[in-house]
């Protein structure tokens, strides 16, 4: 008697954990990695990094100086 709703609940839980594994967590990891790269090349204030990436930053219209 309870089997049908129970099954539906289980499928729901399963697809939710699949979405987490396949979509949300890989996207989160890739997104964080992307932000780290953008920060380093586009925003980090170390003089060396700023001067090396200077022309790229101006061209990408990042607030520079």
């Amino acid at each position, binding site marked *: 008697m309870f089997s049908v709703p129970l099954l539906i609940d289980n499928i729901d839980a399963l697809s939710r954990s699949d979405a987490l594994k396949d979509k949300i967590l890989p996207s989160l990891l890739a997104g964080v990695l992307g932000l780290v790269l953008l920060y380093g*090349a586009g925003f980090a204030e170390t003089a060396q990094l700023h001067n090396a990436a200077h022309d*790229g930053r101006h061209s990408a219209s990042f607030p520079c100086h």
Partner: protein
Amino acid sequence: MTVVIPPVFLAIDMFNLSHFRMILIPALWSGLWAGMLLTVVQSIQVIPTLLQAEVYEEQAAAISVHSHSSSKGAQTHQHEAESWQPQNGWERTAYTAAANISLAVGFALLLGAASNLRGGIGHWRNGLLWGLAGYTIFFVAPSLGLPPEVPGTEAANLKDRQLWWLMAVIDTAIGLWLLFFSKTRLNKLLGSLLLISPHLIGAPQPDVHGSAAPAELANTFIVATATANAVFWLALGSLMGLFSRKNQVIKK
């Protein structure tokens, strides 16, 4: 016999590694190629204007140092001159290429992360649309308030401009997402509001507008960067589509 699964494998099982690879590998290749393309386009039409503006900036700095004025521009310039910077010519171009490729891989990872939530890009034509969205989010929206500037332009406080830039980028990204992917009218309305809100608030402006370089040079620079970034983003998006597809085919 009981099989003991080491905790490391349990942690890996927490998320799908092959899906992460399906974002990472295309992002690395697309970033590399689009970054190199950007460097070529830039060196043809952006860098010449930038170098011209630098001559004006150096002249202005020399004059203000000579007259013992403590203008902000001169201070910044001197501070930069003290630390290492690449020599003009091949060295400078090489560092710009490295910066462009890093930025491109970073942008490609964000593009891959966002499109993975929607089931991936899959085709270069879809990639063009994702690229167009990236161009709108990271170039058009922030540039409406803070136009691309040649060196030696008076500008408001750096931290304030960075904050506004970040707000414009985040608002535009969420705004476009809601506008295109949400199903309810209320969410679409909210998306539209987010798109315009940074411009209603307004970008921080300097007390006095001015530039060492003439106004035409500043305008040429805006057109040049707008073109270069459009080419870059469309290339990045379509390459992501192309490489994601290849990656999926190989996987099969």
